[in-house]
């Protein structure tokens, strides 16, 4: 055999995994992996930009993802640069060191979702509050719509956003009972918040410091003597000042 012939035989087929790795690296396909969470097993999808979606690992979630995004999923490990922070991020309910890929969203949607992660664990904020935080105070309904289409629930904690009348409201990730379960898990005491909402208590004041807060704020929850108000105007009239932590006005 000539040397050229032998050299020509030194090739072979495409090695296993190369096609998949390239699809993942280019973002033509997304990677996915399963993680435990307070609401059961969840499927997290990711690409080189970060986490792109989170969903309950129920039913045919691969097919659901494909129908929503037109992309295929490949079982993968999250990028090494932040993989170890992902379980913490899911449990803590904040992105932290995990990058989130919000490229498919509008700027408004992305901004609203990023603000949700400033709501402390164990507390809730009304839609109206979120609208004010993004400087669109009249966009309460638009904010509600962003919450219901949150692609990365749990990590972007839309479960901490509640109706403007104080009731817990709906939840896109599996329904309102999961929202209650999550808030309970985080120590927000949703049963207490629902009672206050029924009594139409919007804010509460600390009798000693004369500061008033949203009812879930840790400041008022640690107060010894609390007074209920129907709205911030009432609190102002009684000489209370708004809390700098929960910004109730």
């Amino acid at each position, binding site marked *: 055999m000539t*040397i*050229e012939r*032998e*050299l*020509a035989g*030194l*090739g*072979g*087929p*495409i*090695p*296993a*995994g*190369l*096609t*998949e*790795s*390239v*699809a*993942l*690296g*280019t973002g*033509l396909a*997304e*990677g996915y992996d399963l993680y435990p969470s307070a609401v059961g097993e969840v499927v997290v999808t*990711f*690409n*080189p930009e970060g986490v792109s979606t989170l969903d309950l690992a129920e039913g045919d979630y691969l097919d659901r993802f494909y129908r929503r995004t037109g992309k295929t999923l*490949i*079982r*993968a*490990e*999250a*990028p*090494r*640069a932040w993989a170890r922070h992902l379980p913490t991020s899911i449990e803590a309910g904040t992105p932290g060191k995990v990058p989130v890929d919000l490229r498919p969203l509008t700027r408004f949607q992305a901004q609203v979702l990023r603000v949700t992660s400033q709501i402390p664990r164990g507390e809730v904020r009304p839609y109206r509050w979120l609208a004010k935080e993004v400087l669109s105070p009249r966009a309460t309904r638009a904010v509600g719509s962003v919450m219901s289409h949150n692609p990365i629930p749990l990590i972007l904690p839309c479960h901490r956003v509640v109706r403007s009348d104080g009731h817990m409201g709906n939840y896109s990730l599996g329904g309102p009972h999961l929202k209650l379960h999550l808030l309970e898990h985080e120590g927000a005491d949703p049963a207490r918040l629902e009672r206050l909402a029924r009594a139409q208590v919007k804010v509460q004041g600390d009798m000693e410091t004369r500061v008033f807060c949203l009812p879930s704020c840790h400041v008022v929850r640690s107060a010894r003597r609390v007074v209920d108000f129907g709205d911030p105007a009432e609190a102002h009239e009684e000489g209370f000042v708004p809390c700098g932590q929960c910004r109730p006005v």
Partner: protein
Amino acid sequence: MDELNHSLAVDVAGAFPTVVERLGGRLYWGLRRISGSHQEAEDLAQETLIRAYKALVDYPEERIIALRLDPWIWTIALNLGRNHIRDRARRPRFVGLVDDVASDDPEPVDTGVWDARLSRLSAPQRTAVVLRHVVGMGIEEISEATGRPSGTVKADIHRGLTRLRTIMEDEK
């Protein structure tokens, strides 16, 4: 090849899997013979194809249509091989590749003897011989990929083959 260029010009994302399918195997095995290492070749082939995709996304249509894919891909691969640029840590990893550092070595036959022979050539000679006879590229294409004049490429191949014959003679 022309047809693939046109598909790429219309829809990079849609046509790129065909590029991987058509070039991926030769790219890997060429790199494998040049580097002598499965892991290095796998890593470089992956990186090369990902960078090629990113470049194509930004190229205007005319440039994609005029592109000679083989030498272009190899230009990227050889540059990466020189610079050892990696950003794997930011990427999702296919689970087939996760457990061990790299996937199973797909080597079909024991070609260690050939890797040993090739490793004794100078880098330009080894690259030229592998691109010509393992990958099957033409002289002009190799010249484009390596940035060396075609006369030099021809001489590299010729000297490389002569050297390999001598090495094989010595083995007897």
